[in-house]
């Protein structure tokens, strides 16, 4: 109640001030008709509304007589007015309670009263922001469709989405089958594959939801299509990693390189997710994709690291074995193996000394 009272009082203040300023305004009328574009923008400079006005005087405020009516309670009923004379727009604050600020490339937030408005200036009144543009404002270059666009169009086709989800379920079912120690039936496998794909659907659904909430187009099918294609690719990279681990000795460089593949895939997925779901600059998109990847892999690493015991009494070795079809590399001789193993003794002795 108290707050409301206060507001009413302030309103009266503002109104009284306006009466006095109006008299001054009437003095210089210009012959030339002004044209101005006023954009209501959100705090992070997202466009909310756009007004294009062809008149020499524009009033902005909370009451319904204004040319631009704002609902922000911190704005006075007749907050400010813009006036055009001799090709120049002036701003006058009608002695508002919370004042008006002007921001542009040259000046950071200054009192706006009696200032000249330039193209691109942002006026802050109450908690709202308005951007002023003139009709000769330079717009950025047209962005051509990227090659991704046609790829995304293909992937987001309902049939394509259906195929990739089905493929994903087949793979999930196969993994469940391989891991079962006892005999399994189809329905068990189907249930586990289905729940797996449901779980993985949370990611594209979440991204679509966030882009919807941030006033972007959700493009849910495209998000699903892209995400599942990448889930499948990641499974293939796992398989590839396994084949490399199986075929190479522990000192192999290829094994290290192949470990980067899932990270690269993750970056690409997050990049495409943000490309589909959000409007942002190319640089920002790369930063977003990289940071989500760092968060994911760094988090996983931290989790593993925190679980690591101080001393592991068990050997930690790579026991990857696969069916003979995947065996590509030639085998070494016992002598070679013994020679390689001999180096371990030195390492172990060194480790024993270091830990002391």
């Amino acid at each position: 109640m108290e707050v409301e009272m206060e507001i009413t009082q302030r309103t009266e203040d503002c109104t009284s001030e306006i009466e006095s300023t109006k008299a001054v305004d009437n003095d210089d009328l210009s012959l030339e008709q002004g044209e101005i574009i006023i954009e209501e923008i959100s705090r992070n400079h997202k466009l909310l509304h756009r007004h294009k006005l062809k008149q020499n005087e524009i009033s902005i405020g909370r009451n319904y007589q204004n040319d631009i009516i704002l609902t922000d309670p911190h704005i006075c009923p007749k907050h400010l007015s813009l006036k055009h004379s001799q090709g120049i727009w002036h701003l006058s604050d009608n002695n508002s309670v919370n004042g008006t600020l002007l921001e542009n490339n040259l000046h950071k937030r200054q009192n706006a009263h009696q200032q000249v408005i330039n193209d691109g200036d942002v006026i802050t009144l109450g908690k709202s922001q308005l951007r002023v543009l003139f009709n000769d404002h330079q717009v950025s270059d047209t962005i051509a469709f990227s090659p991704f666009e046609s790829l995304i169009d293909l992937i987001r086709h309902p049939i394509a989405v259906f195929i990739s989800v089905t493929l994903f379920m087949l793979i999930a079912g196969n993994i469940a089958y391989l891991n079962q120690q006892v005999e399994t039936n189809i329905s068990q496998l189907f249930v586990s594959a289905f729940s797996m794909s449901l779980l993985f659907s949370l990611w594209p659904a979440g991204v679509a939801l966030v882009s919807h909430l941030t006033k972007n187009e959700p493009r849910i099918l495209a998000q699903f299509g892209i995400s599942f294609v990448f889930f499948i690719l990641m499974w293939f990279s796992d398989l590839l990693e396994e084949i490399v681990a199986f075929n190479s000795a522990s000192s192999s460089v290829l094994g290290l390189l192949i470990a980067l593949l899932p990270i690269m895939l993750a970056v690409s997925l997050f990049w495409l997710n943000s490309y589909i779901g959000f409007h942002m600059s190319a640089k920002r998109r790369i930063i977003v994709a990289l940071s989500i990847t760092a968060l994911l892999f760094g988090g996983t690493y931290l989790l593993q690291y925190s679980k690591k015991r101080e001393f592991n009494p068990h050997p930690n070795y790579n026991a990857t074995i696969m069916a003979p079809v995947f065996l590509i590399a030639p085998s070494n001789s016992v002598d070679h193996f013994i020679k390689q193993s001999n180096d371990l003794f030195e390492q172990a002795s060194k480790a024993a000394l270091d830990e002391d």
Partner: protein
Amino acid sequence: MKAFFTLVFIFLTSTTFASEQAEEIFAQLTPSLYQIKLIDKASGEKSSIGSGFQISKDGIIATNYHVISSYARHPEKYRIEYLDHRGKMAEVALVSVDVINDLALVKRRVEGEMPYFQLSDQKPIKGEKLFALGNPHDLGMIVVPGTYNGLKKESFNERIHFTGSINSGMSGGPVVNKSEKVVGINVATSGNQIGFLVPHDKLVTLFNNYNKTAPANIKQQMAEQLLANQNKLMKALLNNTWQSKELAGKAMIPIIEVPFIRCWGDSNADKTDALILAAIANCSLDENTYLSSHFFTGSVEIEFRYMQAKNLSDNKFYHLYQQQIARAGAGNRAGKNDVSEYQCHHDLVAPSSTANTNKAINNKSIFCTRAYKDFSGLFDVLYLGASVDKNQQALVSHFTIAGVSQENAMAFTGKFMEAVSWK
């Protein structure tokens, strides 16, 4: 399955009855029998107790290594005390150990000549009546009568098989014959009137060596003994016949023909719902060397596992097979302060088989080793070979050796890898 022996420890159960006659006979030995206590310096309380007996007039007392092992490993943390039949307590010094035969010599201060146990100069004969002595409680000496049953078969380091209930707390106590001469030292029990003794000649050797030159450093003495023992063991393993034997009619595996390595078999042929048929042969050395309650060494384990898929795709068979080999562990117990972490290496290896040249095997081979911190030059090693050349069959060959030198470990590994093949 495996026979495990519990070391006779410490904790006190008193069910022993000494025959009155025996007690009378050995009453005169009582002053030479002690309770040996390990006192934790910080708390001032005892952390373990056992028995001991004096073997020289100048105050040398024999006991088990495992009774004083905590002191041998961490001399700064403990002190050793004796408690005699009159309740007198005093500190003693550790002067020599035989870690392989679980013996230790400590020395007390003496004023004047003291009675002591005579060590026998001959072995007992089978069936001979013996008396195990100990001083586990503050009650004084107890006597347990029993029978000599010869040396334990299949043992690498000799132990006397004694039929009689050796009690906890009697560890380190002497076993004497009718003429009051020491023929063994209480060391372990496997329950049900089966006890094990260290033959007295080990003590004689230790005592004579001590009289010749007292060891300067106990840790170094232990290292030398461990090194010498593994050399002896590995020489026996490498130089004896490796008999090539069939496993499940499909694979050829080596069986080392030495009595102290004993083999056992198992399979899951009775489990009709198992997806994989498995046959396992397991050979091991039934004894190990006690270094401390969390650190054992000297064990040898060898395992072969043949697997055959039953109605499985190749991929699934290999997937389950991988789970079987993913968690091989150490054969002995050791902690952070005793050993480094394992260092491992893996590769694809096709040994040129010595057993069956035209049916060679292609393995994924894994070798891991960890080094001992206090005994440099000794390692625990682990080898695991998994065949990867048959779609529906697999052969796992695996061994662990604890406390071995690099040279012996690699000689064994090489010979082992080449002795495994398909049939």
